[in-house]
């Protein structure tokens, strides 16, 4: 399971960065989404995957008796998912606006800001 997840994370990071480096704006968004998901899965993986041991103390005892799944990574991922969701939706709107105003989706042609003025 860990190996599989590690491979997936690697692929997501690589694909995300590759997509960000391409010239099309739409591919930029895809890259952002892939990278965000890769980071979330990485937190999940590095929080140690423990199967079938929820972090709930049994009724008859006062402390944990055995190893339990760490709940913190889930909380972190939840936060990160919400944040990257917000950022991604902003990115989509931004790209749509930019495409409308600049009339191109090629990053190489977006060089008005580099002009000498």
């Amino acid at each position: 399971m860990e190996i599989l997840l590690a491979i997936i994370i690697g692929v997501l990071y690589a694909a995300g960065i590759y997509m960000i480096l391409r010239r099309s704006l739409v591919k930029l968004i895809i890259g952002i989404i892939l990278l965000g998901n890769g980071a979330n899965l990485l937190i999940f993986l590095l929080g140690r995957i423990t199967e079938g041991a929820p972090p709930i103390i049994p009724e008859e005892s006062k402390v944990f008796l055995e190893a339990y799944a760490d709940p913190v990574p889930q909380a972190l991922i939840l936060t990160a998912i919400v944040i990257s969701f917000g950022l991604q939706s902003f990115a989509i709107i931004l790209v749509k606006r930019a495409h409308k105003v600049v009339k191109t989706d090629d990053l190489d042609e977006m060089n008005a800001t580099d002009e000498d003025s």
Partner: protein
Amino acid sequence: MTQQLILYPLLLQMLLAIILMFFWRKINAQRVISMLGSLVHLAVSIGVFAYIWNNGTQTVQAGNWEAPFGITFIADTFAATMVLLTSIAGLAVSIFSSGSVIGDRLRFGYFPIFHFLLLGLTGAFLTGDIFNLYVWFEIIIISSFVLITIGGEKAQLEGAVKYFTLNFLASMIFLTAIAVLYGLTGSLNMADLANKVAAVENRALVEITAILFLIGFGIKSALFPLYFWLPASYHTPPSAVSAIFGGLLTKVGVYALVRVFTLIFVDDVFLDQILLVLAIFTLFSGALGALVQNNIRKVFSYLIICHIGYMIIGLGMFTEVAIAGTIFYLVHDIVVKTNLFMISGLIYRIKGSNSMRALGGFYANYPKLSLLMFIPLFSLVGIPPLSGFWPKISLITASFESGSYWSLAAIIFASFITLVVIAKLWAEVFWKDATEIPERPKFRYYHKIRNIKKVQIIVPIVFLSLVSLYIGFGAEHIQTLSARIASELIDNQQYIDAVLNTQKSE
């Protein structure tokens, strides 16, 4: 009452942003609330600063969860100083925005977002939890995305795409670094991490995590070679927005770098070398970039990059004198850079252009304003006794003591180029004969706007110039302050004890 004192600046900004949202369409009400609120924020920040100065580091554990389990808020002298500077710059830009940003932009929620940005900054300075720092960073960048795109001009949107992509990438790298750090130590509390990272046996992985943090924060603070988003975007939004970005957004990256590399990843010769090399390159590339630009705001953008180098070079040398220099430079730079972008806004208002070639004759036509602009411009260069001079002494002394002559050369070279750049700017904009710039029909020139607006544009520039003068002439005070911060940062045990032993003091 005083227990939660350090949270007040945070809560106040949040309250302000929320109240402002209820006045969405009433921009005059928003202007007044924003200005008054910023004034109150300044008062509260001064109160917090005075309290921290007298009573030492304060912590608040959110929800009363003991550290390291809950989220910690901590105000040491460094954080309190940064909060104070945020509120000074915030007040100035709030007044300046009221005068200079046109109503069409204000109608789309400029002020609420502006205060959310200040909320994010205050939070980032006060938090003691690395994941919480990530969340504050996200609040900062989301607000900054909105501010940079409000108005939706072509150049703005193009700049925003670049700004967005690189800042998003920085956040993802930061998040990756947090994930690896959590996997290594199982903790997120920065004080706890400081203890646990020192005990980790796999040093190679710690080094890699540190590099990830360096890249993440390096993009945000515009370090070489990660700064290309900055000159592509900072000159596109209204100058009020550039002012707060230029003054505070890159500095929060520097703050995070200083915090992480003095607390969590300390005593690492390899990292210090990397920081030094990056800082030297940042100084060179920023200075040379500024030399060839024609747009005033682009010149200032490159100067931001150049002067980030001074702060990082102090961090790289990692002696008490050097860190004191870094802190002093940070204090000076926030005030001056905010002021410079407001000045570029004023110049734009008066003449309708920011091109150095087109401008001219300022000194002949506006002698008083020119004298006012003289203060921040030459504080930046560091003509003694103005404020930029003093931190450089600390940095130069430190580089002598640590024998890193490359740093010394870079510091002197960058100062010299800054002088050349500002002298060129002064000659072009102020001394050259006035040129005819074709009048733009709908543009609201400075002489056409109402007097109240003029006051709102001039007052913040005067205010920040006075602060600059104080930093220059009262350098002794700031030096005491930065020396105290530096000793607190070097001896990080104080910080760790303050976070982990709070239950003892109650």
